[in-house]
């Protein structure tokens, strides 16, 4: 039994044109037994940063609170909101602190980064469970359906998608990937982050 497959769950993030999307399934399981179809794995870290935490459910809760603490400390000390790239390094170092007794989480993050000109640049990143960062230009995936997500995303994704098209691409990728994964599924939610709004949609999925 792998601890990474104990509760199941998957997350994906994609880059679009001046927008990003991040999506996850809603299943919480106890190995092959489904427990809940309302288990959120994506959390807002700021107005423009969202963090997905697939992996061991108990660590999802712990890390969510851990990041809330560290983010508050950062905001108080710096007197400004954190930028996505900085946040990615915060995630990385938080996980690497536990290098030899890790949290069983593979975080995925998506956000909009402020450029010197004042515009916003899409940003996505993911790490492994000990904080090795992966800054991708297209999409990042994690969780029990990661191989499936890679396959579908590689086939569906294209550069410079508008928010609505990015939503569709991200949702289709997730839905079709988790339908082939026994440990993921049971509904999904998708966040699309644009410069002036965040669209959250909860999706129905196969319940088998």
């Amino acid at each position, binding site marked *: 039994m792998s601890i990474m497959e104990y509760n199941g769950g998957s997350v994906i993030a994609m880059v679009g044109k001046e927008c990003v999307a991040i999506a996850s399934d809603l299943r919480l399981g106890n190995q092959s037994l489904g427990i809940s179809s309302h288990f959120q794995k994506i959390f807002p870290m700021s107005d423009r940063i969202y963090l997905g935490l697939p992996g061991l459910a108990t660590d999802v809760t712990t890390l969510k609170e851990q990041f809330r603490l560290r983010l508050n400390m950062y905001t108080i000390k710096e007197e400004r909101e954190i930028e996505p790239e900085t946040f990615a390094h915060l995630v990385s170092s938080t996980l690497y602190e536990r290098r030899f007794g890790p949290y069983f989480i593979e975080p995925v993050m998506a956000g909009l980064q402020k450029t010197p000109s004042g515009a916003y640049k899409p940003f996505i990143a993911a790490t492994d469970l000990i904080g090795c960062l992966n800054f991708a230009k297209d999409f990042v995936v994690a969780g029990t359906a990661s191989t499936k997500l*890679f*396959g579908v995303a590689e086939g569906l994704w294209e550069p410079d998608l508008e928010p609505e098209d990015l939503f569709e691409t991200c949702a289709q990728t997730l839905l079709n990937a988790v339908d082939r994964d026994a440990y993921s599924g049971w509904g999904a939610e998708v966040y699309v982050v644009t410069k002036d709004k965040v669209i959250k949609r909860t999706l129905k999925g196969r319940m088998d």
Partner: protein
Amino acid sequence: MPDGSFSHPQQRQFNPYTENGGTILAIAGADFTVIAGDTRQSEGYSIQTRYAPKVFRLTDRAVLAVNGFAADGNMFVKKVKQRLEWYRHAHAKDMPLRAIARLIQTMLYAQRFFPYYVYNILGGIEEDGSGAVYSFDPVGSYEREACRAAGAASSLVQPFLDNQIYFKNQTAAPGTSHPTHLPLPDVLSIVIDSFTSATERHIEVGDGLEMYIVLAKGRSAQSLEGMRGLQELSTRPDGDRVFVIRKELKKD
């Protein structure tokens, strides 16, 4: 030794199997079938060769793709071809596709306790002229389907096919419905996209792509004409016809 490491004489067991990578895929249309496979053969992190076919023409209406342990695969194809030749000598005609499928199941199950470590996908034209795909597990469980991916990158490709062939998780526009079968050019595009995607994300997939196309008797081959790397393999022009298209995939 106090740790008991010598209490049981240790014996290294010979492992008669290995995995040689690669991926295969087949999609059935209304009156055609496409059966494809990459041509890389590997063991561990080494590429043994960039061209080792995994897809084989059996008859003018049947094509078999074999993936897994290459030695078992080649031996299995050899034996299937031999049985088909015997059938030809006995009955003066080619074995029908559904009969080949059942033959493959019995041949695989005959080795139930020392299996051929291979996933088979059989594609071709049924006697009623419809395109058909049969997929098998190593010990002979099989079913007829409209599409199937197998091998190293099957987990990458199959959900993509669910979406693009079966239109899973897609709702048709009001008053319309999804087609049950796609036209040949669409299917070829999906096959090529599947393999370029698998090549991008899986180290055991790449080098070359071989797409076999079986057309039902009487169906026009017009949509294939002028395609690069096309070759006809049929023995007669007035029955079911077999074509192959060879393409390059990334070699890294």
